[in-house]
């Protein structure tokens, strides 16, 4: 990789009771590079995201952003440092409009009003409009999130992330269940972002999307990273593919 490492997790582990969900995993995300996390269900991919973003605290290991530790920071502090994430179950703000979902995602201050006065508010409105335009949701700005179609909810989840302007995106199954046309739009969104320098880590079960987008694949199984490399290396490995499709190792 020629670009610098923005985010790294080194030797990271987390157990729940006696069950080791993530064991001694090391992952580096390079600037402008799309890294896919692949592996069967229960491999520890989402847990790894949660450990990076502070939603879970690792038992062991280090997490660094541009060389500075972010281990133990609360999720909101990790987010404010420029790591935006999506959730497998989306977790939209269902009672709020599409517009307010995106606007709220870029209003982090907990106080009664946001800093920056009217110029700050105008800048945030512009960010929201750009994100809605990019995701094709501009005409649905006033619609409540709970009233959107499945594909629209997926793009709203992306719009929230785009609007943050975060340099690192962690996307948890962002394209699952999308029709081919929507999938193509999603691929374009990610490509445009990486062309602008955004670093992406992607959990995705659809291998076509992984092949289209990923520069690197880290393959996880049962909490361990089994391999990492170029897509052709990982997807050409018969043993890994067997594990992916449910044939357990000896």
């Amino acid at each position, binding site marked *: 990789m020629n670009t610098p490492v923005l985010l790294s997790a080194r030797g990271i582990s987390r157990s729940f009771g006696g069950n080791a969900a993530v064991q001694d995993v090391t992952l580096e995300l390079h600037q402008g590079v799309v890294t896919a996390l692949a592996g069967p269900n229960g491999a520890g991919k989402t847990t790894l995201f949660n450990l990076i973003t502070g939603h879970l605290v690792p038992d062991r290991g280090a997490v660094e952003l541009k060389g500075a530790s972010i281990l133990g920071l609360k999720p909101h502090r990790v987010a404010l440092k420029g790591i935006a994430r999506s959730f497998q179950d989306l977790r939209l703000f269902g009672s709020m409009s599409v517009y307010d979902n995106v606007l709220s*995602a870029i209003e*982090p201050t907990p106080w009664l009003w946001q800093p920056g006065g009217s110029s700050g508010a105008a800048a945030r409105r512009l960010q929201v409009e750009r994100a809605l335009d990019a995701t094709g949701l501009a005409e649905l700005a006033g619609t409540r999130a709970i009233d959107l179609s499945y594909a629209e909810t997926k793009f709203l989840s992306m719009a929230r992330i785009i609007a943050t302007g975060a340099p690192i995106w962690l996307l948890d199954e962002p394209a699952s269940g999308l029709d081919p046309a929507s999938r193509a739009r999603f691929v374009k969104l990610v490509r445009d972002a990486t062309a602008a320098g955004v670093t992406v880590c992607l959990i995705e079960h659809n291998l076509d999307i992984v092949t289209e987008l990923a520069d690197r694949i880290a393959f996880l199984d049962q909490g361990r990273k089994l391999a990492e490399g170029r897509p052709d290396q990982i997807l050409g490995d018969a043993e890994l593919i067997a594990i992916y499709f449910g044939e357990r190792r000896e």
Partner: protein
Amino acid sequence: MIAYLVNLATLIAIFGIAATSLNLLIGYAGIFSIAHAMFFGIGAYVAAQVALTVSPDFLVAALAAAVVAGALSLCLALPALRVRGEYFVAASLGLQMMASTIFAEAHSLTGGVGGLVGIPPARILGFDVASPDAFLVLALACLAVTLAVVRTLMRGSFGRSLMALRDSESAAEAFGKDVRALKTLVVVVGCFFVGIAGALFAFHMAFVNVESFTLEQSVVLMAMVIIGGAGTLTGPLVGVIALLSLPAALSFLPFIPATEIGTVQQFIYGALMTALMIFRPSGIVGLSRGAR
């Protein structure tokens, strides 16, 4: 009859403020507190003490009541907001029970079970607002200010942040929201306003004791919010009108003996709550989305 209606309208304004403030917690932030009567009581006792010992000026007493209720709410917010959902309900229940005991036992501050009597009529900047009509105008003005402030806050980033954490706390955190700070702030703001309601209540009744600030009162306040429509601006006020007007309406029905009104009222409250939760879970106003 007019005097009765003026008294009813004053109580509706006072409880309208209390329910609106509780709605900030329940409706917008998803924090189910059943200790709200405690802060209503703190506001009433502080205002009564200020009126009795410092000045009968409503502005002074209400400001003191709101500040003390808001500050003491940190006692609830800081430890209790570390826990989620039903655990917070249990924590607030414990605090409410403890407060009822303190209200009854702290004679020097609250007058004990006998309460504080002889609260002087309210004045504002030297002007007398003791008459029922003048006090109703004052209560309505306070309600209008409360509704205006809540409307402004809820239409701004603070309201969006609260609704975001109500809808998905983990997603709100993932977008940089300090959930604990937000929850603490909304509890303080809610208790600030219920402190004002308490001050109005103390001046209106000219007497306060623990009976008005029990767990039952907290439950009634919660019922007002839920029946009217949690998370809407006008819902809590509609709930207050419905619940306070009911006893008045029943007293005009000749076939219900005066001694049975309480029983009939409880039955209707229970049936109304059950029916609403089954058929209109978002409350009377909750169906009207435009009211948000």
